[in-house]
């Protein structure tokens, strides 16, 4: 039986209740049974081919911000992470210890943002993000998942939203934001349950909880642009999905089904979602696939596409341009996940007076290190996360030295991650959503 790395001076194990308790409940026999049936039933040609053909060339290393930020420690390279997890499992045919499973969980959940940058660097296009997600799925089946993210997954199962928001609280929050927004536009409405609208606007659980102003800004934009839109009053309003990241694919499927069914019930033409990256991945790429929809059954567009469209069609106008020079952080899930990088720039050019680019950017951006559910694994892993993205701090510092004062990051997770990076590395830069900027500079109907 493989015991895992016995002593590791470079990486001390981090205590986490979810992982530790999960490991306690395991026995080698149970692990072997679960792994055997998992490999048999849930892995296929991609998994096998990737495992078979990786030539151990290490060319994917330079893709990964964890590797680059941890002084090129090979344990953080994409293929290095595969070696320590799936590699050992295959080599020992599932005969591995509970402690080893705990170690793999830490790697798969907190040392990879499943950002897919490495898939662009491996000559064979080996998708390490897919392999790490497969590893997480196995950990989920073994009941070894970091506590914080598991809690959000529980919230998804119980409430169909990420933040334990109750139905009446959701409606209250919307009405509260409607009230606030009436300061700008006196007769503004946030239309609830309006059947037959053109657009269903959906957000992630944390918006009503922590960033409610985003909802009223969106309402002001919708109203000014004269959109026929609605928000659901029932579960299904939340497009976020931490179950996708814990490996709870069944729950991921239920969440996406409920989201699309809500849109179908409201008979809308399309769904516009707020500025969130992972939710987009879930709706557009992973969740829909699990349910069996090759593409979303009702068209879904990300806020950036929507803003770009509003500007193209002249539906919103700006009174002035945002003064302070900005830089753009490209969120992985909508850049490598949907190629929206040029649209972000279109909107920035329409609304800001000066843009200072960070490099590498666009598809080649570095992740914020918060994505892929890593930030959702909570405080125990925060230091590792922030230190694992020193390269991002370097990029930001360089942009700042050229004059950038504000970082535009059109994604919730990126905001969380960059906030910590900016604070830890004492960068003193401001963070904004595109919606914040548009709201600030737009001409509002009153």
């Amino acid at each position, binding site marked *: 039986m493989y015991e895992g790395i016995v002593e590791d001076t470079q990486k001390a194990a981090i205590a986490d209740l979810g992982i530790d308790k999960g490991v306690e409940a395991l026995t080698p026999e149970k692990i072997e049974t679960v792994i055997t049936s998992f490999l048999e039933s849930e892995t*296929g040609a991609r998994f096998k081919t990737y495992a078979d053909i990786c030539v*151990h060339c*290490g060319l994917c290393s330079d893709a990964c911000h964890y590797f680059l930020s941890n002084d090129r420690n090979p344990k953080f390279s994409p293929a*290095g992470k595969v070696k320590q997890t799936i590699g050992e499992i295959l080599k020992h045919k599932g005969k591995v210890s509970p402690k080893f499973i705990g170690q793999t969980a830490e790697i798969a959940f907190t040392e990879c943002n499943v950002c897919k940058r490495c898939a662009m660097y491996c000559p064979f296009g080996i998708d390490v993000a897919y392999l790490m997600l497969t590893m997480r799925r196995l950990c989920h089946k073994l009941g070894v998942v970091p506590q914080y993210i598991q809690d959000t997954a529980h919230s998804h199962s119980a409430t169909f939203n990420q933040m334990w928001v109750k139905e009446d609280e959701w409606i209250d929050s919307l009405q509260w934001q409607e009230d606030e927004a009436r300061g700008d536009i006196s007769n503004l409405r946030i239309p609830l349950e309006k059947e037959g609208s053109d657009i269903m606007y959906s957000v992630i659980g944390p918006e009503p909880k922590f960033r409610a102003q985003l909802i009223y800004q969106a309402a002001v934009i919708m109203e000014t642009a004269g959109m026929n839109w609605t928000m659901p009053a029932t579960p299904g309003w939340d497009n976020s999905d931490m179950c996708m990241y814990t490996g709870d694919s069944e729950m991921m499927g239920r969440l996406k089904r409920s989201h699309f069914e809500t849109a179908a019930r409201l008979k809308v033409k399309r769904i516009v979602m707020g500025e969130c990256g992972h939710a987009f991945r879930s709706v557009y790429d992973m969740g829909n696939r699990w349910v069996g929809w090759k593409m979303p059954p009702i068209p879904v567009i990300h806020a950036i596409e929507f803003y770009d469209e509003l500007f193209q069609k002249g539906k919103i106008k700006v009174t002035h341009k945002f003064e302070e020079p900005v830089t753009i952080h490209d969120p992985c899930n909508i850049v490598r996940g949907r190629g929206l990088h040029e649209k972000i720039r279109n909107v920035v050019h329409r609304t800001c007076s000066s843009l200072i680019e960070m490099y590498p950017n666009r598809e080649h951006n570095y992740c914020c290190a918060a994505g892929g559910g890593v930030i959702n694994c909570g405080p125990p892993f925060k230091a590792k996360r922030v230190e694992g993205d020193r390269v991002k701090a370097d990029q930001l510092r360089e942009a700042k030295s050229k004059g950038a004062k504000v970082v535009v990051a059109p994604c919730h997770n990126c905001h969380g991650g960059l906030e910590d990076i900016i604070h830890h590395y004492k960068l003193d830069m401001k963070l904004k959503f595109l919606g914040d900027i548009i709201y600030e500079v737009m001409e509002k109907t009153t």
Partner: protein
Amino acid sequence: MHHIYDFVSGPLVWLSFIIFIGGSIYRIATMAMLAKKKDGVVYDYMDSSYALRSILHWIIPFGSENMKKHPVMTVVTYVFHISLMIAPLFLFAHIALIKESWDISWGYISDSTADIMTMLVIASCVFFMLRRIKLPEVRYLTDTSDYILLAIVAAPFVTGFLAYHQWMGYKLMVILHILSGEVMLAAIPFTRLSHVLFFPFTRGYIGSEFGAVRHARDW
């Protein structure tokens, strides 16, 4: 010696080709069936134009960002793979043998060109080995099998080189040369050398996902 020569240059050649060709077909066919059964997405998302776009970017030298980041590795990799295929396929001695057996032939390269290519393959193998030893991120991934594979690939070229220059035991070298060539061929479908077989598929698939679904480049 003669018996051994007859054996390795007769039945063993057949055997190695059968293993190589049969094995390759078997590997690709079983993988295609497994994909049908377990990874339906592969078929659903595969898109020939995006697949081709990606493959082209990754077979043209310096066609991808990563190749630009590692210029030496890129040059060595290209030189290695090209020489590895051209030298044996167009070596005059090989073609003469085939002509003798089946009366078919094709163009050939001069012996001195083949000699240079052989040396390039050997030098590349040394480079790959040093890279494995010296670069921490490569060393970490390396296990014994990686060195064995490297030896399997280098052996036919080293022995061919020695046989051609007749520096030591010519007969023995020829036998070893044929034998090691056969080992290499037979190893392709069943070891990590199968990356050659699967490259178009894995590259094509990720290219399709990036192109058709994600609308992003993958190079």
